[in-house]
């Protein structure tokens, strides 16, 4: 089994249990990445952030988060049906002199030379393969997009539900320095609720589309630049040319966001917003 796979499976199982215990819809897809990894990736991290937001919502409604106390031993058993004895994990070194030995999946710290985690001295653990100090960069290109459990719902004259916005998963064409998940994600001024209000207030249902009874969900992708400005606004999945154009117009008109930050620096971050155009008296 590739390094990190067992960790990935266990963490995924934890996320699924959190979702189940708190009645949160979480659609997870099987990771198709075959190589070694750190046990987590932008897609995994996005699922954690989604769960956090859902739990916060529930707490605002007076519902306490439920954590039943998961046993990692049980999770090991549940995720290793072909391996009754758990494999050594990435970074986990059995029977070493000091269990605080820093493993190879440590977060790199800028001021340390790249080989600083190489073991020193004369001691070797019995699993030498687990102790290489290679830094592996993991990308999750070409995976299925995240499930979108909510939308900015635009109904004439009626405010819809709170939006769910997600960092976009997948490559942004021609944009090599765009992040998907960063330590501090960019934020619309005032937060998600304000973003929803802004879109609801400024978007107009195109007249022709209304007359034709056209409705549906438009996915708009964009980049929050280092200065918070919005760029590269594009239609990822459209419904109708007029609805698509109106959605793009409103997203392009947004005020500057608070930019995303990573390792103390502002960075470019890719986002997508689903906007639902729904006529008041028309059923799906």
């Amino acid at each position, binding site marked *: 089994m590739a390094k990190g796979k067992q960790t990935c499976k266990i963490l995924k199982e934890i996320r699924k249990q959190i979702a189940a215990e708190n009645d949160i819809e979480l659609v997870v897809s099987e990771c198709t990445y075959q190589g070694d990894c750190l046990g987590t990736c932008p897609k995994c991290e996005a699922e954690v952030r989604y769960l956090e937001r859902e739990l916060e919502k529930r707490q605002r409604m007076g519902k306490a988060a439920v954590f039943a106390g998961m046993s990692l031993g049980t999770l090991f058993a549940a995720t290793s049906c072909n391996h009754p004895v758990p494999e050594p994990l990435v*970074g986990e070194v059995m029977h070493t002199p000091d269990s605080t030995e820093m493993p190879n999946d440590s*977060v790199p710290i800028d001021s340390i030379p790249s080989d600083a985690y190489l073991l020193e001295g004369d001691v070797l653990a019995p699993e030498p393969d687990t102790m290489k100090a290679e830094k592996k960069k993991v990308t999750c290109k070409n995976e299925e997009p995240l499930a979108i459990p909510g939308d900015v719902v635009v109904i004439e004259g009626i405010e819809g539900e709170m939006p769910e916005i997600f960092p976009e998963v997948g490559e942004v064409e021609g944009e090599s320095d765009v992040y998907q998940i960063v330590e501090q994600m960019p934020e619309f001024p005032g937060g998600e609720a304000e973003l929803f209000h802004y879109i609801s207030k400024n978007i107009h249902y195109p007249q022709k589309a209304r007359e034709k009874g056209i409705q549906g969900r438009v996915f708009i992708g964009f980049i929050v630049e280092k200065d918070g400005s919005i760029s590269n606004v594009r239609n990822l999945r459209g419904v109708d040319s007029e609805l698509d154009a109106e959605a793009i117009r409103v997203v392009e008109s947004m005020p500057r966001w608070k930019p995303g930050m990573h390792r103390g620096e502002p960075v470019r971050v890719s986002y997508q917003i689903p906007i639902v155009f729904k006529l008041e008296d028309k059923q799906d």
Partner: protein
Amino acid sequence: MNKEDGVVARIFGVSRHRLTTDGEGVTTLVAFNGCPLRCKYCLNKQSWEPEKGRLYTPELLFEEVKIDQLYFLATHGGITFGGGEPLLQLPFIQAFRNLCGRQWQIVVETSLHVPLATVQAIDPIVDGYIIDIKDMNPEIYEAYTGKANNIVLENLQWLLQNGDPDRIKVRVPHIPEFNTDEDVANSIERLKSMGVMDIDEFHYIIR
């Protein structure tokens, strides 16, 4: 914010998603620079150099590690402070506890080679100890670490008498060239007589 009182520490590594290595749940290992001992087979000798590592405030560390809060809460996990000797960073860990609250588990992996007052001060805010005892024989301990172990034994005695022994795991290594199987057996026997219930015997392996 502890910018006012200037609590900072140098940290040479942060390792996420450790499963059952340092505690019962998902844990993040935070390794401090600085150690009073100079063990021959130390695997983290970079921790000896005080200028290495990144300078952190408790707030900066908290912001970095809280990314895994959901895992901590769901599995009864949290932070394991190691190093180096984490108990040299008492104010930092105290400030960190104030930031993360009581729900996160805080475990220290320590040699206990610090003043008793430090152990007494940190005891109310940590949930568990992993104590690397080296060897209970003073001569062996000093030969291997360069320091006497009387302070270690006093601290361990205090913890056993004043705290909950269930929170204490003591690791007893077979140290090539420094102790024998008989020495290790003697250490374990003595630890048991002191009231230690969780003892982890293991081997250093020399290449």
